[in-house]
């Protein structure tokens, strides 16, 4: 049996799947691939293969024979999915309800190939005038370190930009290490910040070595605002995402646009980070590279449909890197690590009108991914989020992991709400919400962050603005509470 045509891989279900799950996965594939609705070439063959797979797997006798023909490890997918819900079932209320779902995608241990794909990383370094001094010095030092670390493991290309971009080290170029190192030392600051220029040049470098088995990634470092090219940059990020290139943004100091860079990264499944002090640049990027080295599957994309009478309020990645995710599909979720899980928290709003149904579908679709450190036999996984509808009400047994995640996320969303209100000129409301946030943080033992917020509230009431430093500290501080360790700093 040729591996590619493994029936379970084709349907995106595991050998353990219940007959009903196999049927649902088949229906989902049919609706997506049927020749009547889908004209793209190649899909018709896939449709026929899936038809063949279902003919076997839906028949208990044929399925048993087929299972016998597989070796012990076959028939399992490279990735396991586990879903927890805030309630075990949906009570029949005649009012709108909220349901939280926590999806975990974890590599199947047998399938880690220990032969990770190559790295194809480009560093895009802001060298505008404001980078002069400790910022640029730390960037240079970190770049040297990363260059030495990566040069034997894959390609690191380097681009510098101000209001135009220069390629310092092209992707795949053979250069003497001393030559590269001296040109890193010689980076000079000067000029403005045009992120589009830097991104464009970085993307061109990554494209040179674009490889479906590699991690294709851009790390953008900047300390300033870009003006007028935000839209063009976001478009570029969308193009990058379609080609399988993801972007990490690292903002240095307090003058960069966190909303913009967060969006730029999240379009591609990446995250943004904040270095309030230049000395933090090194450790943030080392962590980043260590994450890239542990990628099991990249380009993880969730695609599908939200159920009828259901809205997706919010989608947030908790692991491996914290980040906001778009609330529409297809959504780039980022990467799945070798030694952990990709965890995504979803908040669904359910409108009344399900009283006569047995089950309610929240989401149905597929997780598509690219194998980096797993055998490329399968590339999609059937994902089905649904709950039974029941008459009783005593269902409140929310898993601890959801309670904790939602608690921390509610803090992050409080600061978001406050900044939204601030941008609408509702200073009093913003101050009230920040005050609430400060109270909650105090009771969680986050005294420093709590105090920093109170100081900003005082500023806010005096001057109706909030400092750029305070704003970023509160945002990235509450975000870091969502890390598995869950503390911004150890309690003294």
């Amino acid at each position, binding site marked *: 049996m040729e591996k590619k045509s493994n029936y379970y891989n084709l349907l995106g279900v595991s050998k353990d799947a219940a007959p009903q799950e196999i049927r649902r996965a088949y229906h989902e594939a049919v609706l997506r691939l049927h020749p009547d609705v889908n004209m793209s070439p190649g899909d018709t063959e896939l449709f026929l293969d899936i038809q063949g797979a279902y003919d076997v797997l839906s028949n208990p006798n044929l399925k048993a024979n087929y299972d016998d023909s597989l070796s012990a490890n076959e028939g399992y997918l490279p990735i396991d999915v586990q879903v927890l819900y*805030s*309630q075990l079932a949906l009570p029949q*209320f005649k*009012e*709108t*309800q*909220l*349901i*939280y779902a926590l999806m975990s995608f974890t590599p199947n241990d047998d399938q880690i190939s220990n032969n990770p794909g190559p790295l194809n990383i480009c560093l895009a370094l802001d060298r505008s005038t404001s980078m002069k001094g400790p910022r640029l010095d730390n960037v240079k030092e970190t770049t040297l370190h990363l260059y030495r670390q990566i040069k034997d493991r894959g390609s690191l290309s380097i681009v510098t930009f101000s209001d135009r971009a220069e390629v310092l080290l092209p992707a795949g170029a053979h250069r003497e290490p001393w030559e590269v190192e001296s040109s890193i030392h010689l980076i000079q600051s000067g000029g403005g910040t045009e992120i589009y220029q830097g991104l464009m040049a970085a993307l061109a470098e990554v494209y040179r070595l674009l490889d479906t088995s590699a991690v294709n990634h851009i790390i953008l470092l900047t300390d300033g605002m870009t003006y007028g090219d935000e839209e063009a940059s976001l478009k570029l990020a969308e193009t990058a995402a379609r080609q399988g290139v993801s972007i990490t943004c690292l903002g240095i100091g307090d003058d960069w646009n966190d909303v913009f860079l967060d969006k730029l990264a999240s379009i591609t499944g990446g995250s943004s980070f904040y270095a309030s002090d230049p000395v933090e640049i090194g450790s943030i990027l080392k962590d980043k590279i260590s994450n890239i080295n542990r990628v099991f599957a990249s380009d993880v994309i969730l695609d599908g449909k939200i159920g009828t009478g259901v809205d997706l309020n919010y989608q947030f990645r908790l692991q491996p890197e914290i980040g906001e995710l778009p609330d529409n599909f297809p959504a780039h979720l980022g990467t799945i690590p070798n030694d952990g899980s990709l965890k995504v928290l979803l908040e669904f*709003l*359910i409108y009344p009108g399900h009283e006569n149904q047995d089950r309610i579908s929240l989401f149905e679709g597929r997780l598509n991914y690219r194998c980096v450190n797993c055998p490329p036999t399968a590339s999609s996984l059937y994902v089905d989020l649904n709950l039974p509808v029941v008459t009783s009400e005593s269902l*409140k047994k*929310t898993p601890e992991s*959801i*309670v904790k995640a*939602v*608690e921390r996320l*509610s*803090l992050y*969303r*409080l600061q978001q*709400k406050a900044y939204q209100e601030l941008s609408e000129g509702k200073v009093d409301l913003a101050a009230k*919400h920040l005050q*609430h*946030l400060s*109270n*909650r943080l*105090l*009771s*969680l*033992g986050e*005294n420093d962050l*709590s*105090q920093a917020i*109170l*100081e900003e509230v005082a500023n806010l009431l005096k001057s109706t603005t909030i400092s750029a430093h305070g704003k970023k500290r509160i945002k990235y501080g509450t975000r870091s509470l969502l890390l598995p360790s869950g503390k911004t700093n150890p*309690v*003294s």
Partner: protein
Amino acid sequence: MIICPTCHHHEVQGALFCSECGSHLGQEDQNPVIQGSLSIYLIDHDHELAVTDLESFTLGRFDEGQSIMPDIDLSSYQAFERGVSRLHAMIRNEQGLTITDLGSSNGTYINGERVEPHIPHPITQGDLLNLGKMKLKILIQD
């Protein structure tokens, strides 16, 4: 519909935390929220402090150069000598009356037992509290 016990904001059924103030909305088996008036009796000074804002307040002592003020300042009751921290504890009246030690140096005790910091502990009428060596009693009047 769920009504937040802390800020009375209306939340959708199934919500776990208040979107307005971040409070936990789980209502199972909590000790009752105090409806009457609360006061704190300072045993060593035979003095009763009435509490006006019942929702949540902090206890501590004001010190020069401090940016967070405790809601109830105990500095005029020998708080420093008795080992009260600047921000010592927080009392809240949501999901029942609770006290949370805010990581004080000398600890908070309920009826003689030291409590773990940063976790709300239920308290009720007549409970004896120690903030360091300062003794307080919780009084609730209907």
